[in-house]
């Protein structure tokens, strides 16, 4: 009898420690321990979302259309409108948010351009200009050295 009772006490103590650890870490918040369940024993919450995604969700995103950009950058707007690079400015420049106050950054590395223009299975020349010899084409130079990013074709 006595030994069963003692064993139960040990087990319950372990259980209590486990529960305290669970709630303790939960109490520290998502910054300390990301991807922790938002609701125990319930389906609600964003469990399964990574810490990075949660960080992004917290940030206010303020997006604008092409017309917003054209108010000041009229020249660039018209230039890009002539070719196939006439998609949203934010695709490369990032969300507008408080743009005039805040400077926008653009990644001008080769890898950034190749993100769309690299030859991959399922990507054909009909849809997008695929660079088959991307390893040698303009080797060791950034794409913008020759190509104007807003109108990459040579007339």
């Amino acid at each position, binding site marked *: *009898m*006595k*030994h*069963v009772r*003692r*064993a139960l006490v*040990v*087990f319950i103590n*372990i259980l209590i420690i*486990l529960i305290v*650890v*669970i709630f303790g*870490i939960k109490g520290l918040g998502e910054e300390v321990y990301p*991807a*922790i*369940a938002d609701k*125990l*024993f*319930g*389906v*609600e*919450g964003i*469990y*399964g979302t990574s810490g990075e995604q949660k960080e992004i969700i917290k940030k206010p995103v303020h997006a604008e259309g092409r017309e917003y950009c054209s108010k000041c950058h009229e020249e660039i707007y018209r230039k890009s409108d002539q070719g196939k690079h006439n998609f949203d400015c934010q695709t490369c420049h990032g969300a507008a948010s408080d743009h005039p106050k805040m400077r926008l950054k653009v990644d001008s590395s080769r890898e950034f351009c190749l993100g769309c223009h690299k030859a*991959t*299975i*399922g*990507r054909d020349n009909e849809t997008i200009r695929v660079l088959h010899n991307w390893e040698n084409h303009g080797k060791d130079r950034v794409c913008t050295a020759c190509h104007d990013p807003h109108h990459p074709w040579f007339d």
Partner: protein
Amino acid sequence: MTTTVVEGFVYPNHEVFWGVLIVIYPYFVSIITGMVTVYAIAEFWRKELKDIEKLVVISSLPFVLSALLPLLLDLGQPQRAFEIYLTPNFSSVMAVFGIVYLTELFTLLGEMWFLFRVDIVRMAQTESNKLLRLLYRILTLGVYDISEKAIKLDKKIIKILTGIELIAAWCLSYVSFLFGVVKSNPWWNTTILPVSFVFGGLAAGGAMVLLLYLAFTRAYGIERKPNIISTVANYAFYFMLAAFALETINTILYAYKEDIAWAVIKLASTELAVPLAIQVIGSLEALLFLKYVCYRCNLGKIDTPFIAIASVTILVVVFAMRWNMVIGAQLIDYSLRGFVSYTPPLWGREGLIAALGVLVAPFIMLPVVAYIFPPYERKLRAGL
């Protein structure tokens, strides 16, 4: 990841994310399921297996503990492997593993304690090594009561714990088909899969028990009993038969229904030809040997090499089954019109060397556990 396109149309983002370590994970879990089931059979039905009760319990602990290793190595951030246990949640299939695993671990530890309690009390009084004696003294929890009544109560509690443990162990084996089902390829996305995997696991556990019985009887100088071997081998035979039949039916069905999965047949004949051959030939060989072992044991003769070969074959076959499911499911593209190949790297976190280390880990832990909780009388070993 080392993935190269082999044939057909493959979507650009297709990659083999789960490597050889994720094959070992359901493999270990299967062995645990099988060993716990053998223990439950001994506890509830077959009284002649009482002899190997302690052996099965102490040897399932290392497997339960090392089932964590593949996850630890597979995940990029090590603390994520432990988050499973600290974030009990039902919204994710994988998160349920934490709850089931902890249930399994605690029932196993409780079972071990109640099963070895008399030994612990005895050793706490007689052990000459001071450190060990202190350990045993702590483990007695200060109660030295080994009266008839207390032992009877222990046995009752062991029965309850075994029941819970059995359910937990069978639930654990869901992770083995989780990896096939999540990919949702028609090959493994079938209702037959859970059943087939539980049976495969039961066979592997039985084989592991047979091998460990051979090893422990040799190490402790105990006489082997033919009826124990014959009973376990018989169970392993029928479990293996069921697993083999179900898996083969499944594969043949998809190879026959060519319209659904062209890639399945192509894969079966090229990329997965070797593991599939191991699965089929090995299963037949193991079945044959097991039945022969049963037959010989019923005559009162023990053919150690045959038992060892049959057990090792089953373990290899079940590993090949897990490989076909985890890796095979990932090789087929969602388009069902193409597949990729997978060759595990030798070095690295997910390489073959790491996988080998994980596979050997329970056998490194086992002597330590067996030293603290000897399944048989220690004196006999000294005499050997």
